[in-house]
């Protein structure tokens, strides 16, 4: 079985590993980097639980092979709160009951972060559109919607 040496920056840290080409980025993050915040629901691009940032763009890590990310810069949900404190998006999910079991939450938090980076004060419709690629099977979406509004407000307040 041929393996490849891959190197990439994950949450600011250089990571190197020998992997089979068929190993997805999601499995690389979970197995080789021990970053189990990235969840796998469907492994075919539908649920969004595995969403991470690659070179600044929110991406399904189940639909990318680790070898494709050679030299890249990856941010997982762990990387969004580097100092162990909840960031504004995470705090807003807690405050607004945006999670129940938490399985889908890492994906929602990464997608919401990407959405707010490009659109700091989204409308209801824009949030619905931005999060339409993430499925939650237990909380219900209203709390998540409110959480993103709250995060937008608190991030806006911090900046001004």
């Amino acid at each position, binding site marked *: 079985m041929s393996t490849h040496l891959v190197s990439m920056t994950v949450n600011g840290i250089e990571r190197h590993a020998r992997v089979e080409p068929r190993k997805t980025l999601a499995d690389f993050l979970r197995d080789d980097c021990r970053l189990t915040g990235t969840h796998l629901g469907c*492994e*075919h691009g539908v649920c969004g639980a595995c*969403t991470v940032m690659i070179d600044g763009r929110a991406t399904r890590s189940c*639909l990318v092979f680790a*070898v*494709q990310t050679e030299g890249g810069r990856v941010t997982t949900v762990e990387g969004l709160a580097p100092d162990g404190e909840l960031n504004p998006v995470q705090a807003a999910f807690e405050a607004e009951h945006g999670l129940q079991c938490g399985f889908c939450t890492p994906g929602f938090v990464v997608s919401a972060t990407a959405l707010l980076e490009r659109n700091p004060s989204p409308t209801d419709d824009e949030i*619905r559109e931005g999060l*339409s690629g993430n499925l939650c099977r237990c909380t219900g979406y209203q709390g998540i919607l409110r959480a993103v509004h709250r995060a937008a407000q608190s991030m806006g307040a911090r900046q001004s």
Partner: protein
Amino acid sequence: MKPAPFEYHAPTTVDEVTGLLASHGGEAKVLAGGQSLVPMLNLRLARFEALVDIGRVDALRTVARVNGHLRIGSMVRQCDVEESAEIGAAVPLLARATPHIGHFQIRSRGTVGGSIAHADPAAEYPAVALALDADLEIAGPSGTRAVTASTFFTGTWATVLEADEVLIAVRFPVWGEESGFAVDEVARRHGDFALAGTAVGIQLRAGVVVRAAIALFGLASTPVRAAAAEAALVGSAVAGLDLVGIGHAAVAGLDPPEDLHASSALRRRIGAATVTRALGRALEEAGVA
């Protein structure tokens, strides 16, 4: 599930790509954005001896004006189309189709060439290429060839591409003044493949239609042009057009596929409605210009 093992190649030139494809004798597959291929590998609906990743071939990522066309490299990602002012101005129909593709997390990887080469009958970009009579540039071991979109698609997920060929660029004609473009579709959920939809381009002169391009998707095994409806439009004055009638005419000869999401008859009705709506918006834009 996890994919079956495969060899991985990451060449940096088109020649290397075709060489690698040829050396595997039909057992290798091109990997572009992976947003259609990787789900199939993960589900083990497909397996290949090798994948040839074209993501590191810089030559496939260029965008340039060539002889009245906008030439878009096959590895240009859907998110780049969305954000490119140049593409939005030169090929508005492609730009307008883009937000309909999946979700933004899919478009951050998915490519122009991948969507067209994959040839899903309900996909937006193949219909745009067909509506605009785009030319597809294909490289193989013995050189390059160009194929028009009208001969490129041969069936569901099937094209004229040979196993040792790679789509390198798509040349979209740039339309002139007084033109309007629209995409309209119906999907069960936002981001799903459409049940049916329409991509339309219209050009006017002094209130008369001089050019009409209507491509339907989700209504047959490939995207299809509504040739009779186009012919009825060209030469007609905009005032007095019966857009509902044209919508029905556009789908009249079709026998759309049936599945648990929609019957054949429902798809045809949706198709007609999307033609009417897309035409309305395209005509309005063309008239305003």
